[in-house]
């Protein structure tokens, strides 16, 4: 009998503890549903540096983007170390849905127009749904409109280049995000040596966040082909600075072009020879709906 009494008192005390007044907040927090948590802001911008990142903008966001590369640093004082020259791309990029973006742009390099489609297939998540990576499918079409000075016969198809990419990224921590970007570019003509060819490259890149508003990025696109002496792999290193509605990216790169078909397969400058372009990307976002 005594044993029973003791057990009952114990049970009562335990029950009381669970409903103690002081724990109103902790009881309430226990009620909070544990849903899937989307891992946001793997990178700051829709570009890592030259290439696209796995970021897409939220539905209804229109981004006006200006990308700019000066001439090479080793071009001497007469050219003010490259600042006299400029290669520029202006673009409008729009998020049709949260995971789907379209964009059109015009590059001064070879007077090229480009358009792209970008779709986020998988979104990194934790919590009740575990998805370790984000995957984005990207394709773009570019048309070169620069007039030729020779009478080399060029068809419309020769002026086109299409790019297909699968961007795979993971935000490992608040600070570190890494991305692998297998890239396939199909060219009409490659300008420099005028041989037809396709290029396969495996881009790698990442960001290291230093503060909430400052990050360092690096990106490299090694090509899986015999590219000869003429072509170089695109390399870039830069910083992201975030200010309100802008993301401001400053970089050093050996690529002159700011679209895939240009920097992946047509870069001829050697970064480690000093053929380095200083440049920046600026974007301004407008919420249309």
């Amino acid at each position, binding site marked *: 009998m005594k044993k029973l*009494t003791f057990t*009952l*008192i114990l*049970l*009562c005390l335990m*029950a*009381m503890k*669970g*409903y103690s*007044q002081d724990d*109103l*907040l902790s*009881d*309430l*927090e226990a*009620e*909070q549903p544990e849903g899937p*948590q989307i891992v*946001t*802001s793997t990178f700051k911008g829709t570009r890592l540096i030259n290439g696209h990142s796995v970021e897409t*903008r*939220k*539905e*209804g*966001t229109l981004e006006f983007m200006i990308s700019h590369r000066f001439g090479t640093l080793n071009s001497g004082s007469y050219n003010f170390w490259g600042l006299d020259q400029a290669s520029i791309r202006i673009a409008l990029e729009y998020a049709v849905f949260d995971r789907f973006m379209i964009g059109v742009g015009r590059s001064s390099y070879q007077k090229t127009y480009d358009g792209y489609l970008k779709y986020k297939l998988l979104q990194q998540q934790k919590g009740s749904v575990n998805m370790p990576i984000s995957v984005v499918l990207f394709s773009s079409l570019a048309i070169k409109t620069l007039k030729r000075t020779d009478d080399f016969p060029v068809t419309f198809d020769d002026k086109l280049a299409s790019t297909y990419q699968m961007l795979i990224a993971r935000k490992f921590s*608040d600070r570190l995000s890494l991305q692998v970007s297998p890239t396939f570019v199909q060219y009409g003509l490659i300008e420099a040596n005028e041989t037809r060819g396709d290029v396969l490259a495996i881009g790698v890149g990442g960001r290291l966040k230093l503060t*909430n*508003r400052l990050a360092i990025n690096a990106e490299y696109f090694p090509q899986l082909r015999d590219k000869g002496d003429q072509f170089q792999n695109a390399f870039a290193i830069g910083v992201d600075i*975030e*200010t*309100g*509605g802008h993301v401001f990216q400053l970089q050093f790169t050996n690529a002159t072009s700011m679209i895939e078909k240009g920097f992946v397969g047509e870069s001829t400058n050697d970064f480690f020879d000093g053929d380095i372009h200083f440049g920046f990307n600026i974007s301004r*976002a407008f*919420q249309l709906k």
Partner: protein
Amino acid sequence: MNWMNKKHIFLLLILLPFATQAQRLMDRHGKVKFFSEAPLENIEADNSQALAALDLSNGNVAVTMLMKSFHFDKSLMEEHFNENYIESDKFPKATYKGVLKNFKKENLNSIQDSLKLSSQGELSLHGKTNKVSPDVVFYKNGNKLMAKTQFVIKIDDYDVKVPKMMIQNIAEEVLVTAIFSFETETN
């Protein structure tokens, strides 16, 4: 004390905690919004998934919400709110734990128009906790007991840092409004 009496006491003891629980009102879809006016732009966000509880036996209140459940019209603003200012990955929740002064359950049941009570408690946000004393207005809406509160917080008190170049965009004071709706059995 004979055995029968003991049995009754035990029963009472066992049931007591459940009785206390029944004294609690809860809202799982509380609405919290904040608004701030700065020279360049207004900042406004809504959260409709706040949890709130009111203990009718003693006037204790508790509120908790996930910072990522705040939604902004401008998606980039939402991203910056989570990423740069509130740091939602590090500090996912905001909570309030307090007590209503001069609280009597009977007064709630006999509300004609509205009943204003002041509360005193602690607001935790962005890893910082401060004492606050917001007033709460109770009123009836059909079968529901509604509770509304509005107060101003200074972002500096919660260690939310604004870079100098953004001073034009972000106000130092933020107006917080919350409305909770509790199902009552009384009507």
